[in-house]
């Protein structure tokens, strides 16, 4: 890893008063959240609660209308000059995204590339890392998600679970310090969910900082350090899995959990 190391006390992700509207619909109403280095944070809540939108604000796939988002202490998407925040040029936003990996609900593997090419692609194009060493690193990542033997296959030739694991390897290839997961198992057949969750457990064990939007309550309970329940564009409640699942304080949290547990 050649990423500049981060002072331990700096949170990996710090959101302060994040607001976001689509037209007249306010989907995020002042969200505060902090994720420390090495933590696994799970975001749960009903659909339309704003949790996916919030996740997409973390790497500026959505612009924010208000508030400040910091990743590794750095302001996302804006530069502070004096008292004012200036929107960043797209090339600078791209640089910020390099070390934030993202895994999507619909995998979004590059359809015209094999599994190996998908993993090799971004390091080659963005960082100019090519050649046998890069290839070996990509094959090791595929090994880590259990798909080295499938390196030469195109996404259309892989099952959903395999595609999602390649997508995780592709994100890891950029050596991220933070991984975002947007409902990574929601589009999978039930029997394929386990393999993907196993890979994610492995990442968590290795100390990767992860923010996971999920409906897999079992995974959240077992792996998460903190669980945050969102509803209607606000954070209703957050705590350790034991606190949130065992002793929810809010009625809305109790109502939601009674439906999904």
């Amino acid at each position, binding site marked *: 890893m050649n990423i500049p190391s981060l002072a331990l006390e700096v949170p990996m992700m710090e959101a302060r008063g994040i607001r976001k509207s689509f037209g007249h619909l306010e989907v995020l109403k002042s969200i505060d959240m902090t994720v420390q280095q090495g933590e696994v944070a799970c975001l749960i809540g009903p659909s339309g609660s704003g949790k996916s939108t919030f996740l997409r604000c973390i*790497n500026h*796939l959505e612009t924010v209308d208000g508030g400040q988002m910091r990743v590794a202490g750095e302001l996302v998407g804006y530069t502070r000059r004096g008292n004012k925040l200036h929107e960043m040029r*797209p*090339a600078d936003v*791209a*640089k910020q*995204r*390099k*070390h*934030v*990996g*993202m895994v*999507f609900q*619909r995998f*979004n*593997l*590059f*359809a*015209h*590339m*094999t599994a190996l090419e998908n993993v090799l*692609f*971004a390091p080659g*194009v*963005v960082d100019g890392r090519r050649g046998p060493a890069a290839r070996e690193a990509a094959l090791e990542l595929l090994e880590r998600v259990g798909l080295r*033997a499938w390196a*030469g296959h*195109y*996404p*259309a*030739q892989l099952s959903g679970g395999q595609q999602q694991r390649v*997508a995780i390897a*592709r*994100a890891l290839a*950029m050596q991220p310090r933070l991984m975002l997961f947007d409902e990574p198992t929601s589009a999978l057949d039930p029997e394929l969910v386990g393999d993907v969750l196993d890979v994610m457990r492995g990442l968590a064990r290795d100390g990767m900082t992860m923010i996971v939007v999920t409906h897999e309550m079992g995974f959240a309970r077992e792996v998460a350090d903190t669980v945050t329940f969102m509803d209607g564009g606000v954070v209703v409640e957050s705590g350790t899995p034991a606190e949130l699942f065992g002793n929810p304080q809010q009625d809305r949290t109790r109502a939601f959990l009674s439906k999904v547990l």
Partner: protein
Amino acid sequence: MIPLRHPFRWITGALTVAVLAAALLSLASNPNLDTPTVLQYLFHPAIIRGLGTTIWLTVVAMVLGLAGGTVVAVMRLSANPVLRYVATAYIWFFRGTPLLVQIIFWGFLGALYPVLSLGIPLTEITFAQIATSTAIGATAASLIALTTNEAAYAAEIVRAGILAVDSGQAEAASALGLTGAQTTFRVVLPQAMRVIVPPMGNETITMLKSTSLVSVIGGADLLSNAQSIYAQNFKVIPLLVVVALWFLVLTSVLTIGQGFLERRFGRGINRTGPSGGFVARWISSRRDKALRIESEEQHQ
């Protein structure tokens, strides 16, 4: 079990044979067709030269037209409103006027601007000047007309191709830290090619035949040269047969090439097997077999 009979196939087959035989007999017995003259001129140097011009006009106009069309398509989908309007106006103008009119216009550009000069606008200072008819001859005018017109059509085809690519692809590329240009040229356009290639194949065949329109400004293409021969010997029909035969040969070659391209850009998407003509299918199935063996060896 007795399979269903298909008597109608036999009837249509017999009718087709009868009509074809009648047409061929009538042509063969018609002295005006003049087969010896057709054969005499089929490989005549002027015809071969014209054929060469037709081929390179097609190739260069298609390559430049596709490149220009891609630029116009990207401009039309740009977030910059000025670029968007410029691209829309370009397409409106070049699709809105007949190609034949555009060809004649470029051929007679000298009537609009007799002299082309390089200098500083609004001053008397000029560095160089040249007569328009010298700078832009008939062939150059032909190429400009075909290219600018093709770019307008190609732009719409490329735009449709770009819109057909799932937006998640561009999102995944952005999330990996790619810039907008890298995303467009490395992720979106390669996948758009799958949608772009079949209509561009048609465009190429149309372009091949449209090159014959430049004969109105003496573009030295296949038809121009055939016309100048029959203007002297009055053997109009045999020379038009020569032209038609060469066009059939060229379009057949293009049709086979299109099959190859469709397969190449369908990589990773088409699992159901190769598209395109039977020749392309045969050759690519052999290549697939070779690849399979190679990848199996790698696995071991």
